[in-house]
């Protein structure tokens, strides 16, 4: 059985997305983390473009362009400026050491592949096996949010989680209506701005971006 080349290429991109999710999990430096996030966005835009081309859905072209603009250029630029202004270029501190995190990550991938197997059999799109990978990306981003101490890397994890969800949407259901996608894009953008404001507030209150200090905020 020969599957079409476009689908093979989407499979390859999905595998690369998973690879980048792992690379982000293992990354110690915040600058490289943001660059990886930009690469993830680029892969996402490319895969959306190919889905649009192979299923001939025009609104997906717009969402591919939107992804390219927002997630490859604007958000990484904003994050770069943010960490420049906050002057946080130090290494990211993780709660669990990185090899352990990777092992937990593998367990998560196996879990999500198993979870997605019955769903994939129901799906009828051109991209059946991809739900598992998208789910794995989402779970890996969640894991990253859990294991990081600093607020900036948690926000990058949040944004990459949204990337995973977006990939699930385009691959499984061949894209949401354009209005919904626009809404989500705007939400992510606004969220980044609000997070930026939060960073300054957190640092002003605690002299650090380490969110463990927030545990002191008790009402007694």
């Amino acid at each position: 059985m020969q599957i079409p080349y476009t689908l093979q290429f989407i499979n390859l991109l999905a595998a690369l997305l998973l690879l980048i999710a792992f690379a982000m999990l293992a990354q110690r430096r915040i600058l490289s983390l943001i660059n990886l996030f930009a690469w993830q966005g680029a892969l996402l835009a490319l895969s959306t473009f190919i889905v649009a081309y192979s299923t001939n859905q025009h609104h997906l072209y717009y969402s591919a362009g939107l992804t390219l603009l927002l997630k490859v250029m604007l958000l990484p630029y904003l994050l770069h400026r943010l960490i420049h202004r906050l002057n946080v270029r130090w290494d990211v501190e993780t709660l669990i050491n990185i090899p352990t995190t990777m092992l937990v990550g593998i367990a998560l991938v196996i879990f999500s592949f198993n979870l997605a197997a019955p769903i994939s059999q129901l799906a009828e799109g051109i991209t059946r096996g991809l739900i598992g990978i998208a789910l794995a990306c989402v779970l890996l981003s969640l894991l990253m949010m859990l294991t990081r101490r600093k607020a900036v890397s948690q926000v990058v994890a949040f944004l990459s989680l949204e990337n995973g969800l977006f990939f699930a949407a385009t691959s499984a259901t061949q894209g949401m209506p354009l209005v919904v996608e626009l809404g989500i894009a705007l939400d992510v953008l606004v969220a980044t701005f609000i997070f930026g404001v939060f960073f300054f507030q957190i640092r002003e209150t605690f002299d650090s971006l380490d969110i463990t200090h927030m545990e002191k905020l008790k009402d007694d």
Partner: protein
Amino acid sequence: MMTEYDLLFAILFQLAQLLLVVLLAPLLTGWVNQCQAWLQNRSGAGVLQPYRVLRKLFHKDAVIAHNASWLFRVTPYIVFGCMWLAAAIIPIIAVDLPFSQAADVIALVGVFALARVFISLAAMDIGTAFGSLGARREMLVSFLAEPALLMVLFTASMISHSTQLPRIVDTLAHHQFILYPSLAFAALAFVIVLLAENARIPVDNPSTHLELTMIHEAMILEYSARHLALIEWASSLKLFAYISIGIALFVPHGIAEVGNWAGLPLAIVLLLLKLMLAGAGLAVLETVMAKMRIFRAPEFLGTAFLLAVLGLLIHFLLGA
């Protein structure tokens, strides 16, 4: 009616491959060193330097420590034999060679392990501090690299439904072209394993004699003359064998098919081209990377294992 001729040809070409490998291996090492020299703005010793070193070593008298046992004496021959055997099993120029049917990829990994066990035992046999230090480090590195290598080989085996290297090459090279995302992961993992197992730069430095960092060199410190020559030659053969495994798994196009003896000249030309590219790539990798602390090596090799397992999982999910 052509089986007898075929068998004769097969045996002839097997012998040709054996000779080719053992003669080309030092040239590959010389090429890698020369590329590194160019990248570091040195003029370098020339690609033929390993042959000169081998000739020099074979003409010297061997010095052996007083308390060396027979193990120390036979190890160079065993290691050289293992590496040569490994290079004979891998389909380097043609798929349909008699030796390659004899052992599958798991046995191949076993052959590498046998050589490693003997060289480590010989290093500890003398009783010097460096020998046992090197042996322990070698064991640390290889016990992490071996599962990753096996996982890489299993990924290719899952795709071709066989652990025989000729079958794997046959499936990957001579059928319809398919993109395999799982093999991309396996290739990355394989590069890391290759660097670690051949004592290349991020894990070990083949040209160092700095006591704190050396692994492979520490083990062979007590060897001299013909013993050292055999071990150096075996190291070249090992690098050649690993690069050939890489070619067989990831870029097998051009290796002569079953019964297609006319494809051999093209196969040899393509092999030389691929080896040149791989050697140059290895030199670039070694130049851009810095040697890492020995305690970071487990994390580095853990990454290889992770990539290989991911490749396997992705094969299960996507079926490709």
